[in-house]
């Protein structure tokens, strides 16, 4: 068994066994009433959720963009050795990938502008509007992050194929570009939904 399989196997076993043991303990000692998701959601600070959303928005988008660029970039560079004419035209694939990162940073800035200070300390005094704000920002960050992640990967793989096809046969490039455009649209969907999610956010006192 190679190292990676061992590592992931071990981590999975550890994780599930911890959950199992904790669950069994709760059951045996009749302390199941202590397992309270509502308490967790109301006691944890909305700021944590908001900032996790902001962080995930930008970081997952950047991961997607980076992944796409590395896939496409390697193919362009490799294909460009034998067919140097593909270099300039195929940079548009890189730009599609980069756009994904730009969506991410724009959303991160938009979401972070909504984070305001509030003066409550207990669930009663914090108020439901602040909780809603925290969770919305988290959700929006996840939305934009994950959609950009997969969009970036998609555009990257398609762009890589486009570069190699272009190197073989110059007429193929334009057709494949259409596929890339469809792939890039999904990132935009993520941005639109995230904006809708945070449209009603009003954090503060």
């Amino acid at each position, binding site marked *: 068994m190679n190292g990676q399989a061992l590592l992931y196997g071990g981590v999975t076993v550890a994780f599930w066994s911890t959950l199992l043991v904790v669950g069994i303990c709760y059951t045996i000692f009749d302390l199941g009433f202590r397992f309270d998701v509502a308490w967790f959601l109301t006691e944890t600070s909305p700021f944590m959720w908001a900032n*996790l959303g902001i962080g995930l928005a930008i970081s997952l988008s950047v991961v997607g963009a980076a992944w796409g660029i590395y896939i496409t970039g390697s193919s362009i560079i490799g294909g460009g050795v034998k067919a140097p004419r593909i270099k300039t035209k195929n940079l548009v694939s890189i730009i599609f990938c980069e756009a994904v990162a730009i969506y991410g940073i724009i959303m991160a800035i938009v979401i972070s502008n909504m984070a305001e200070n509030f003066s409550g300390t207990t669930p009663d005094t914090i108020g439901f509007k602040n909780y809603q704000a925290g969770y919305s920002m988290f959700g929006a960050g996840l939305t934009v992050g994950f959609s950009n992640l997969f969009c970036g990967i998609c555009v990257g793989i398609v762009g890589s194929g486009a570069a190699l096809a272009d190197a073989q046969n110059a007429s193929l490039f334009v057709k494949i570009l259409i596929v890339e455009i469809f792939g890039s649209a999904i990132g935009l969907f993520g941005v639109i939904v995230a904006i809708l999610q945070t449209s009603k956010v009003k954090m503060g006192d």
Partner: protein
Amino acid sequence: MVVSVVSKMTGTAVFIAILFSVFSAGSCSAQVPLVMWSSEGYPLPQQVAPLAGHIISGSQLASYLKTALTSGPQNVLLFLQDKLSMDDFTVYGGVFGNKQDSAFPALEAELRSSASPLVLPALSWPDSGAVPRILQEQLGTSPLYLDPETLSQLRLNASGSSLLIFRLPYSTDADMISPKAVLSGNDDIIRQVLNIIKAQAIPYTAIYTAVRPSRVIQEVSLETLPVARTLLQAPASEPYPPLEFRSGASPCILFWAENLTVSHFQGQWRRHGLSAQTFGSSASVSLTGSTCNQTHSRLVLNYQNILNFRTFRLIFSMSRRFYQVSGRHWFTLDQVELEYDGQKATFNSSRNIYAPSEYSYRCKSVTSFRDPLLTPRTANDNATLWRLSFDDFQIQGFNVTGSDFSYASDCASFFTPGVWMGLLTSLLMLLVLTYGLHMIIQLRTMDRFDDPKGPAIAVPQNE
């Protein structure tokens, strides 16, 4: 050279061995040590060292001194300290390897340089005061009480006999000067005197002793000693059982707190402790008005004359309900009310004080002002003028079986919200790290077209 070293060693060793042997011999009555030495070249006759623990009596001392003085020098310098005990040598003599801290450097040097010093570790007390008299009788001269200044003006006869007595002071820890300083000063006086005598080249016999012992330890008979160990801490308050309200035969509400304090704002906060009246053997609280049934329990504590209020009532209202989502019964402490002279103050507490109805609720600190679990019902309720504080609060309003609390559901949980937030964020970052590491680890360079034996790749210069 070797002989002198050996004699020094034996001198010191004998000194210290006798010191320790007497010290370890134990028991406890009043003795005074006596140390006698003579000038170089005029050794004292060898004496049989006294047995460890043996207390020398006056007659034995007289015979010792007689043999010493008949053959030794007849000029006797008696350094008579007010008080001296063997313990002074042990404590201030640097015997625990810290010779540099010794308060007797001159004395030790003298003993080392003298040929055969006489050390009587335990001279019985009343007789030690008789040393001047014994010496006077044996020498046949009357004593001269001197100090170093007057001694330097005196001319002594080397072959005659004289008795020069130098009184040395002593201080205890209770006096202003430390005993060590006084003993060092005395040692200094001894050194000065001996220097003067040596400068005049007169053979001498010197004796260092005291009139009375500095430490007298009384023997205590065992019957009077307290046998049981007593703890040195402040007396702990007696543990008391929880306050019980009984409807019928068995208790129905249980309540316990370590400290129960109410404060009222009348220009300034005025505090009153109620725990003495509520708990323990001195409890004077009355529970009239308390009720309990399957769904509602009310504990009413009635007091008199609290903070200038004639009547004062503290009311805990609890209720028990079935909650659908968790599928079990929970009880909540809905309100804590204060009724005082017809007025009312209400604190809400149902938000924070709850537990499954089979269990009791316990919290280390239930207050209305410090991480408050009790909040005034409205913003202008009388409760804003009051502060309640319970330390180690425990209450049970339902399912009471017997006089003990059921399992206590504590207000402090194992994981606090902060711990959860930290764990969540750390887990997320750990996932990110794992994923990144996974990607980096499985990077491989392409080796499909590697052909070590083939020609190198030719890169065309133009398109």
